């Protein structure tokens, strides 16, 4: 209990330091945050334009489709500022040799890599996620308590899956020195999670639900909230948990391979 409180204190100190540093250029920070939000609205904008022309994703009305994207954006909005920064932090530190400074700290390296990577600009994503999610939820038939409970449980699994992705990408950054394009790899494969899974072929649906945890990032929790939980939901949850455990193992394996380049 005391260790948990101590970790939280350390984490908050990291957040405070990151915020203070970013506030040196306040105007740029707020502009950056605002446009971070707007960039993330690309997929919802495509959805809106598609529905505006009279076309649609078969079986999904506009707000149901936007709900999937709202859930995805909300999850990213929590993950990116609070723990996904481990990716760029690790890549930068390996490149400059500064990862050594985290290795000698009396705390887990993974924890320290997260603590020193709070990304305030990414809070724009969170604002966008909250706005889009609220807009969609208020325009679908009100979900019951059971749907909300299922959704919340699945949303926690969504965050766990995103944590898994972050740790894997950061682990890759240890051996694939200086390659920030791991973000592009992540963004490309998770695009499938921004749309209702039913628009994809059966094979692809199986892949993104039961082999790589992508549907859990948007489609699965949104379906639960709409009262349409599919039989694959349990499989997606189990996969995400296995994925998380494997990702942590992968990180430690990659960290063992790290050879310092000085600093």
């Amino acid at each position, binding site marked *: 209990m005391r260790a948990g409180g101590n970790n939280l204190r350390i984490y908050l100190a990291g957040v405070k330091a990151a915020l203070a540093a970013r506030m040196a*250029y306040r*105007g*740029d*920070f*707020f*502009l*950056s*945050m*605002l*446009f*971070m939000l*707007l*960039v993330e609205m*690309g997929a919802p*904008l*495509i959805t809106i*334009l*598609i529905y*505006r*022309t*009279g*076309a*649609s*994703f*078969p079986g999904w009305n506009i707000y149901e489709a936007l709900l999937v994207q709202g859930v995805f954006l909300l999850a990213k909005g929590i993950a990116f500022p609070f723990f996904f920064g481990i990716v760029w932090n690790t890549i930068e530190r390996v490149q400059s040799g500064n990862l050594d400074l985290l290795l000698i700290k009396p705390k887990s390296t993974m924890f320290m890599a997260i603590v020193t990577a709070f990304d305030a*600009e990414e809070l724009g994503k969170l604002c966008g996620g909250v706005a889009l999610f609220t807009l969609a939820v208020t325009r679908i038939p009100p979900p019951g308590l059971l749907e909300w409970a299922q959704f919340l449980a699945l949303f926690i699994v969504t965050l766990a899956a995103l944590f898994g992705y972050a740790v894997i990408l950061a682990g890759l950054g240890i051996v*694939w020195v*200086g*390659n*920030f*394009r791991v973000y*592009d*790899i992540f*963004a*490309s*494969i998770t*695009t*499938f999670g921004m*749309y209702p899974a039913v*628009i*994809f*072929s059966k094979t*692809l649906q199986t892949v993104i639900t039961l082999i790589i945890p992508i549907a859990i990032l948007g489609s699965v929790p949104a379906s639960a909230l709409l009262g349409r939980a599919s039989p694959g939901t349990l499989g997606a949850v189990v996969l995400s948990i296995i994925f998380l455990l494997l990702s942590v193992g992968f990180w430690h394996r990659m960290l063992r391979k790290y050879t310092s380049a000085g600093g």
Partner: protein
Amino acid sequence: MNSLCLSGLRKRIYQGLRVLRAAALATYKEWAAYRSQMAVSIFVGPVYFLTQLFIWRAVFSTRAVVNGFTLEEMVTYYGISMLIGYLTFDSADWDLQMLVRTGGFITFRLRPVSYCFYAFCQKVGHRILAFWVELFPVYLIFFFLFKIKLIPVQPGWALLSIALSFILVFLTNFSIGATAFWLTKTEGVRRAILALRDLCAGTFFPLILFPRGLQKILFYLPFQFITYAPIRVFIGHYELAGVSLPIPEVVGLQFLAVLVMYGVYRTLWHFGIRRFTGVGA
């Protein structure tokens, strides 16, 4: 007198070509060391494309035409957009703002070559490398795996249009970078302008999907000439906001947009460079 001018011009062109060759080659060699980073596009590009394919297949399953586009045209649009993106991408904005912020720009003030020209040469070298590391493999994937034949209807006009887009992207990005003379840290401004640029250029989706009123505004902005116009030239017919134009006219307007953007860059540079002060570096 005339022959003296001509010989001076010839000398300047020759010197410019030598700088272009040297800087492009150096950049090519430098980035070839990180070619695996570029090669990530061989995975990322087709995956993005596959997503678009599924999205639009689902949309077109309920109707044959969306805002004048058939499924085949829509898919082709995204394919060409991706390839043009590989050819025209650059980071002139980031490079310039970083040099201004860190003070590294001082060294460029001491060189007998304009920084803008040097940055352009760097882009040429970088994109030559991207041609065979990114574009060529992705083109083959589109051709053999997705069975999309991305062949321009009028190759000459398409090449000219892509070349103009190449210059236009550079001038736009360089102008964005020049804002660092006023703002020092330009992350937010860069993000803002790049997002608006891509949205108005038709990088995310065809501009014809926008409401008619918005299309009319976009028609008069130079951004459509970055992606949308070159794609329409590639396809062989141009239409936006209900206006159809012959291909030579589109390319002519694109040339005009390049001139306008050059004027914007010159103006920003003229006032911005006076604000620059640097120590050491």
